[in-house]
């Protein structure tokens, strides 16, 4: 959203503050927190600066450098807190000499006119090996993208106070154990990068659940995509980071077409509804990723998405190319979900019997397995077994849109021949 040039100064100030918040929240938090590693203080100080902006910009006018203005105000707030901490005696021990060292003000190095880029370091802090894996993505959502604990809690379907407490505890840990805001050097990078990519990908996975519930424009999905692209740009030449950027951009291109509360499987989607600009952007990132050697998980996953996206141009899906990519993916990152997806492709290429044969040994509670199995059984002309598999797939999903879709698929099955149904199950059905 760009600020209107005319109109109510209150509105103009709000729009300017919002725009700055969207574009530079993580940048400012990273710069503010880096010298002291105190993320909570940095966030509080920045929140205070935004509040002051909303109060003063309407009558003073929006400053020429809103980012620099916010940074200066936030720094002063940090310094106030820091000084008052220095004034306090450190009970019950003797007065702590630590806070008294005025000579080295940790905020002195911050020049509001030349805001350094510390976001990459912040991402590495969030996905540090000493930070619990489960909190890395929420921490990124909060500190880099500026989402509130309550919003993150809602996305994870956990109580807000519990999420807020975990985030506060993690931030305290970063400060107390002294996890430094540094980008690891080349030798350590290979070891540390996967966790960062995984956590950023986690942001997009959480975002995917948001679609349908909120308007796509305002959703987390765009913010998560922006984060993935930012990460790739900051790292500059990491093929997997560009692969991740490509993957989430291509996914977002299709998600933009999603209708709320209605699930349409990928191969039944109308390509005309996809966002062509985002598709082109994603494909450009994928080309960038392909410049590097070797094919990692994200690059291969992005390539599978590009195959689907290609249908917008060619009108058909190259299932053979998909199978090749799935095989390559299985070699680098084998998962049950991947095996199921490959079986579905085998069903396309070699017929439903081959698909069923390729299905992995079931995880009894693995929903995609049952949904794929139901689909393949229906095609193989076994409506009774398909019905049963649909039942299980429907039972296992929390997503109302998916459930509705599966139920409609189930009703489309060839009418059941009751005599093919075991008596015990017939009784169960009547309940």
């Amino acid at each position: 959203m760009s600020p209107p040039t005319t109109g109510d100064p209150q509105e103009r100030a709000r729009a300017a503050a919002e725009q700055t918040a969207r574009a530079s929240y993580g940048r400012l938090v990273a710069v503010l927190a880096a010298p002291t590693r105190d993320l909570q203080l940095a966030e509080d100080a920045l929140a205070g600066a935004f509040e002051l902006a909303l109060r003063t910009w309407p009558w003073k006018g929006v400053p020429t450098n809103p980012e620099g203005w916010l940074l200066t105000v936030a720094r002063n707030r940090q310094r106030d807190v820091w000084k008052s901490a220095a004034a306090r005696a450190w009970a019950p021990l003797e007065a702590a000499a630590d806070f008294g060292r005025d000579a080295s003000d940790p905020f002195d190095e911050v020049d509001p006119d030349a805001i350094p880029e510390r976001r990459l370091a912040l991402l590495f802090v969030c996905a540090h090996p000493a930070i619990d894996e489960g909190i890395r993505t929420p921490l990124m959502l909060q500190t880099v993208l500026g989402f509130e604990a309550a919003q993150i809690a809602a996305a994870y379907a956990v109580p807000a106070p519990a999420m807020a407490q975990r985030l506060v505890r993690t931030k305290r840990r970063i400060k107390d154990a002294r996890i430094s805001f540094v980008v690891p050097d080349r030798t350590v990078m290979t070891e540390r990068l996967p966790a960062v990519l995984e956590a950023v990908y986690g942001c997009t996975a959480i975002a995917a659940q948001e679609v349908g519930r909120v308007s796509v424009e305002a959703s987390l999905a765009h913010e998560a995509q922006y984060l993935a692209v930012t990460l790739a740009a900051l790292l500059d030449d990491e093929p997997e980071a560009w692969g991740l950027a490509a993957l989430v951009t291509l996914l977002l291109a299709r998600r933009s077409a999603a209708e709320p509360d209605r699930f349409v499987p990928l191969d039944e989607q109308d390509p005309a509804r996809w966002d062509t600009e985002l598709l082109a952007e994603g494909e450009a990132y994928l080309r960038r990723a392909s410049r590097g050697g070797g094919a990692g998980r994200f690059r291969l996953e992005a390539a599978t998405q590009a195959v689907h996206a290609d249908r917008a141009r060619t009108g058909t899906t190259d299932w053979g190319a998909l199978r090749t990519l799935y095989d390559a993916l299985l070699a680098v990152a084998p998962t049950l979900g991947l095996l199921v997806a490959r079986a579905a492709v085998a069903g396309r290429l070699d017929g439903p019997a081959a698909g069923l044969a390729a299905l992995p040994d079931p995880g009894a509670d693995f929903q995609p397995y049952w949904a794929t199995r139901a689909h393949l059984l229906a095609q193989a002309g076994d409506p009774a077994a398909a019905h049963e598999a649909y039942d299980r797939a429907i039972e296992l999903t929390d997503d109302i849109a998916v459930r509705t879709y599966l139920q409609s698929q189930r009703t489309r099955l060839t009418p059941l021949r009751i005599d093919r149904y075991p008596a015990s199950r017939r009784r169960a059905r009547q309940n």
Partner: protein
Amino acid sequence: MRYTLLMHYPEETTESGGADVIEEGQRAFASYAATLHEAGVLLSAEVLQPSTSSTTLRMFDGSLRVQDGPYADTKEQLGGTFVIDVEDLDAAIDWARQAPPVWWGAVEVRPGATHVVDGRWLPNA
């Protein structure tokens, strides 16, 4: 910044593990301490006697109970501590991953809060 590396590992005696195992452990600790010292990060190190020689005190219903044995009766016991002074947690983890007990048990990296120098409490920095 001061970090204490707490070494937890199953206790071996000459009877249970053999003299060779004990000697090898001692050599590993000695060379680890030498490495830390040469890097200028080692403040102190102490390897403890087996927990069988430990005595634990606590108040129970208002009276002091002195007990034969360690605080926690677990398979892995606190066997030693190394105090190092390094820049940040990453540096501390880099040293901790080289500690011999990583192979036998677990090494806990704990930042210090405060410590005494010449009878005065000083905060960690």
